[in-house]
């Protein structure tokens, strides 16, 4: 029979095959979540925190927390919302700790970061515009455009009236539109 320590051996916890089965199931479940949702969470974290390394840390912390509380996730169908909520709370906690300001991220690093992803001028113009968008406009937009969250789902997640979310999305698109229009006008002038 295989006997292995469970988590911290210093607890003197001794594990039977049966417990190992339970733990193996938990591990498999966890791996599925990481594989399925880490790309989405990374992108969401990136647009929440404004930089790559902060986004990586945020997702790491989210999944460590998810591991601890995995038993409280009863239904795999709600896993994405569950993880997204954990990530939002982790970010809020971090924000409280560090008083991290989005505007602290300097624009040079943004433009060098954004250039790597996609060279098309309108896409990098949009990336900079998205970074400059206030968080309360950007966040619902990320959820709606990237992951297809409905207005109601976003409203529930933020604990806001549906109309407030609709107004924020409306403003977000208006701002981005005007940036793109300015951008095309500029390009036309240059020619």
């Amino acid at each position, binding site marked *: *029979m295989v*006997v*292995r*320590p469970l*988590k*911290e*051996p210093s*607890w*003197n*916890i*001794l594990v*039977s*095959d049966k*417990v190992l089965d*339970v733990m193996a199931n938990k591990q498999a479940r*966890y*791996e599925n979540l*990481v*594989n399925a949702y*880490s*790309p989405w969470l*990374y992108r969401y974290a*990136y*647009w929440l925190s404004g930089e*790559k390394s902060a986004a*990586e840390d945020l997702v*790491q912390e989210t*999944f*460590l*927390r998810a*591991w*601890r*509380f995995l*038993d*409280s996730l009863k239904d795999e169908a709600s896993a994405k919302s569950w993880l997204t*909520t*954990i990530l939002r709370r982790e970010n809020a906690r971090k924000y409280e700790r560090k008083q991290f300001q989005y505007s602290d991220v300097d624009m040079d690093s943004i433009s060098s970061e954004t250039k*790597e*992803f996609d060279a*098309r001028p*309108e*896409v*990098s113009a*949009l*990336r900079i515009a*998205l970074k400059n968008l206030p968080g309360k406009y950007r966040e619902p*937009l990320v959820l709606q*455009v*990237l992951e297809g969250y409905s*207005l109601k789902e976003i409203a529930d997640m933020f604990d806001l009236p549906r109309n407030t*979310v*609709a*107004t924020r*999305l*409306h403003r977000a*698109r*208006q701002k*981005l*539109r005007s940036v*793109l229009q300015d951008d095309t006008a500029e390009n036309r002038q240059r020619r």
Partner: protein
Amino acid sequence: MNCLEFRQLKLSDPDCISEEASLHQSGCPECARFEREIHELDASVHMALTVAVPEGFAAKVLLNQSLQAHPRRPKRWYWMSMAASFFFAVVLFQWSPAETLDEEIITHLDHEAHQVHGNSGDISEDEVRNVLFAVGGDIDHSLGSVTYASICLIDDMLVAHFVVKDGKETYTLIVIPQEIDENMPFQTRHWRGLIVPHPTGSLAVIASTQTESIPDFLQVAKRYGASIKRATI
């Protein structure tokens, strides 16, 4: 629906298709153009938002978790696990299904009574918390002196098993993620105890029958029950 309403709708929820909206769109070429423009905008925004995920990111996340879960091992670990493998072989062999919760607990206690690591000294609050996490629990306030903490398996459920000291008294606490409807007292030759409903499911408080006086289990369950809460994310 007028032009303003249509545009407001499309700016906040481009994929929303209502009968009113499509009716307006088919009768208003200006708004139809606007609608196409918003969809093009969203396609570009989607592209802009889809930043590249670092290579091997999922593997990195999994590695991080396993490093946190399995820190370095103490040396005395090896022989203890050898002793335990014998113990568990005995327990699993004797495992009989279809017992009630109190019977399951008694079976568990009777066998674990032979364990060598039961009196392993002061358990830190962090260790107590880590054991509680396994069953969806957390510390609300200190349990006082804890001399044993273990994640155990009762009836296919992971439970948190503690031994606590309150003055001269020693109690066994088992936090079980299974709900019960009412208090469940029980007694055997070696043990007497009480299982009560608890926010985490249920809580069993057990004492040896060797004690001088019979403890007030309801009071004890209340005191320790209040120290343990359901974990929140």
